[in-house]
């Protein structure tokens, strides 16, 4: 996430400060620029690395639970905003919350109007980082790193290891801040730098700088964290800090907008809601920065015993964090009454594409790369995609029996072609799962991963059986030029209906990880055995009847039953993958 952008931002950061190297020669202050650059560079690297570690482990520990909370608690706009704030505060990423929301919209679990509240709430959730870093518990940073490291390496429990990584990440964030803060201390008496900081007093400049930096590092929390580091040295006044926090709000949604390019309509619309809300919020407050500053000054602790830069350094970090939170809460309260209107405006602005349906037939709908950093959520996306792939397989299976029994070559070929779509989806799922496996999976997630891999393979095998075996049987009937008798028609159609039900249930069991549904697939075995037996008796009776083409008809009918039994076998294997995933024993 931070790779390329971090490199660029670090470079810019260094470039920014290298400009002062020559200026320093004129100054009376002795500043070791090389040491300062190294400290800032290393401190920023530790800070960003710590943020990433913390965020990754939080997603691994809480991602799954957050998803179900988000799905359940968004029935009205206020609950949506509160849930969006809570979930984002825990997983530390508004973009992940937005991606989750997009998934719910695509799956029909949430409307765009409901999602607006969640997206608004996500903005409040991101401000929690600034609140934490403003606590200045930097002295405990090394202790956190030590304890976190011990938990990571000494524990065999996956959850404890993740908590260890989280604690170590938080420690690294604070340690990085301490290093940067110490490195900046000499600048307190360096006039050219102080002049530059005065330029930041212009809110437009501050907003633009913060938006650009947020875009580069792809994290508004990182920007506000750095703003607080600067504030803790007294370099930034409260109004300037507020402007920078505003800029981080704009930067974060521009990143989301860029990430939505080429994505389904729902993703673009959700990103547009984010942009509209964040930009409108900043524009609304731009003229009231001094008033907001006054209000948070009253709300935040003051240090009357200090004066000058020292007082500024002590008071401003918390004031900026409070202003950021207050601004986002106020915006949510102002705009929450207009979620329906915002959703309608965005739908008008970004209408449905007429030809999008065609496009979607071959491209995966749910495999979002944004979620790869949260394996629990990425695996859930695989489940949704299994449902998508399952719809296609079911459509093929639905059409195959009438096509075999009384269809023509065109109908059979169209079913065969449909399997190309299934194969393409299968390849996309496998590629996505390959990427998931590169991340750190817990033991439970590994089991889930393997079970899903098996289920996806079985679903693809069902598609292949229809495409190669069943289509071929239809073609054989057409080549032989006979029609299937009405009684046989009924026997085979009944058999097909039962297997169809088993396939539907197997897809449902895998996509919902539902053991009860998986059990019902297993229980169908007896019914299928009985149906198969009665089909065999019927076929034997037909064989002795005086009818033309009875031998080729018999072989085709037997083959149809056999291939369908094979399809049921794959459906059973899909269901058994749910047993394996949930650690349940298979029935005898």
């Amino acid at each position, binding site marked *: 996430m931070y790779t390329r952008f971090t490199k660029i931002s670090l470079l810019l950061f260094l470039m920014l400060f290298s400009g002062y190297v020559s200026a320093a020669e004129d100054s009376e202050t002795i500043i070791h620029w090389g040491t300062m650059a190294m400290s800032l560079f290393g401190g920023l690297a530790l800070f960003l690395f710590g943020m990433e570690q913390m965020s990754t482990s939080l997603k691994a520990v809480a991602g799954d639970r957050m998803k179900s909370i988000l799905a359940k608690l968004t029935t009205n706009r206020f609950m949506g905003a509160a849930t969006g704030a809570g979930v984002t505060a825990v997983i530390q990423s508004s973009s992940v919350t937005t991606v989750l929301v997009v998934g719910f919209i695509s799956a029909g679990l949430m409307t765009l109007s409901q999602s607006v509240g969640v997206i608004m709430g996500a903005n409040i959730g991101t401000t929690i980082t600034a609140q934490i870093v403003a606590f200045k518990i930097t002295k405990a940073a090394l202790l956190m790193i030590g304890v976190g490291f011990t938990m990571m390496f000494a524990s065999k429990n996956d959850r404890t290891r993740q908590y260890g990584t989280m604690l170590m990440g938080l420690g690294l964030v604070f340690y990085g801040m301490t290093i940067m803060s110490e490195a900046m201390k000499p600048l307190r008496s360096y006039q050219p730098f102080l002049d530059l900081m005065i330029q930041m007093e212009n809110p437009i400049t501050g907003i633009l700088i913060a938006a650009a930096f947020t875009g580069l590092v792809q994290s508004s929390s990182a920007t506000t964290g750095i703003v607080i580091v600067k504030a803790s040295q007294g370099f930034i006044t409260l109004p300037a800090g507020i402007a920078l926090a505003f800029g981080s709000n704009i930067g974060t949604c521009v990143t989301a907008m860029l990430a939505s390019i080429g994505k389904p309509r729902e993703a673009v619309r959700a990103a547009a809601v984010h942009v509209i809300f964040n930009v409108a919020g900043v524009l609304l407050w731009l003229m009231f920065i001094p008033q907001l500053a006054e209000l948070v000054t009253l709300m935040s602790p003051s240090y009357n015993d200090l004066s000058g830069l020292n007082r500024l350094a002590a008071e401003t970090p918390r004031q900026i964090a409070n202003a950021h939170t207050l601004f986002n809460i106020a915006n949510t309260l102002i705009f929450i009454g207009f979620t329906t209107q915002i959703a309608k405006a965005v739908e008008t602005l970004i209408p449905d594409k007429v030809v999008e349906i*065609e*496009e979607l037939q*071959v*491209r995966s709908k749910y495999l979002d790369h944004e979620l790869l950093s949260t394996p629990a959520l990425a695996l859930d996306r695989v489940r949704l995609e299994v449902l998508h792939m399952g719809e296609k397989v079911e459509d093929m299976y639905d059409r195959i029996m009438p096509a075999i029994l009384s269809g023509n070559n065109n109908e059979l070929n169209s079913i065969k072609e449909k399997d190309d779509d299934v194969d*393409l989806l299968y390849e996309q799922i496998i*590629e996505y799962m390959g990427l998931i496996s590169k991340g750190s999976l817990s033991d439970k997630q590994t089991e889930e991963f393997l079970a899903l891999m098996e289920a996806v393979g079985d679903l693809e095998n069902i598609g292949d059986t229809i495409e190669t075996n069943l289509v071929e049987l239809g073609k054989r009937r057409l080549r032989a030029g006979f029609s299937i008798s009405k009684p046989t028609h009924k026997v085979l159609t009944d058999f097909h209906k039962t297997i169809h039900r088993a396939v539907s249930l197997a897809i449902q069991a895998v996509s919902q990880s539902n053991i009860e549904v998986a059990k019902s697939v297993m229980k169908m075995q007896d019914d299928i055995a009985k149906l198969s037996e009665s089909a065999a008796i019927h076929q034997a009776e037909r064989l002795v009847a005086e009818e033309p083409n009875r031998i080729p008809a018999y072989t085709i009918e037997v083959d149809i039953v056999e291939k369908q039994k094979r399809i049921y076998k794959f459906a059973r294997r899909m269901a058994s993958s749910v047993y394996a995933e949930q650690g349940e024993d298979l029935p005898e």
Partner: protein
Amino acid sequence: MGLEKLIKKLGDYLEGKEDSCDKIRELLEKLKHKQKKAEKKLADEDRNSKRKSLKLELKIIKAQQKKAEKLIKKIC
């Protein structure tokens, strides 16, 4: 233009087929552009995993083109 053709065109326009056809053609153009871009990327790429995903992307683009062409034949 014969009366029959004119009536068919008018019917297509009223059903929105004209609009859809233009959009599919537009999509086909975009797909061509996408294909060229992906092919160029594939030629320049050395990493195996990236090559694999680019090959899959090309497969998807080709399948989309095939579908779009079929749709044009069917409705335009």
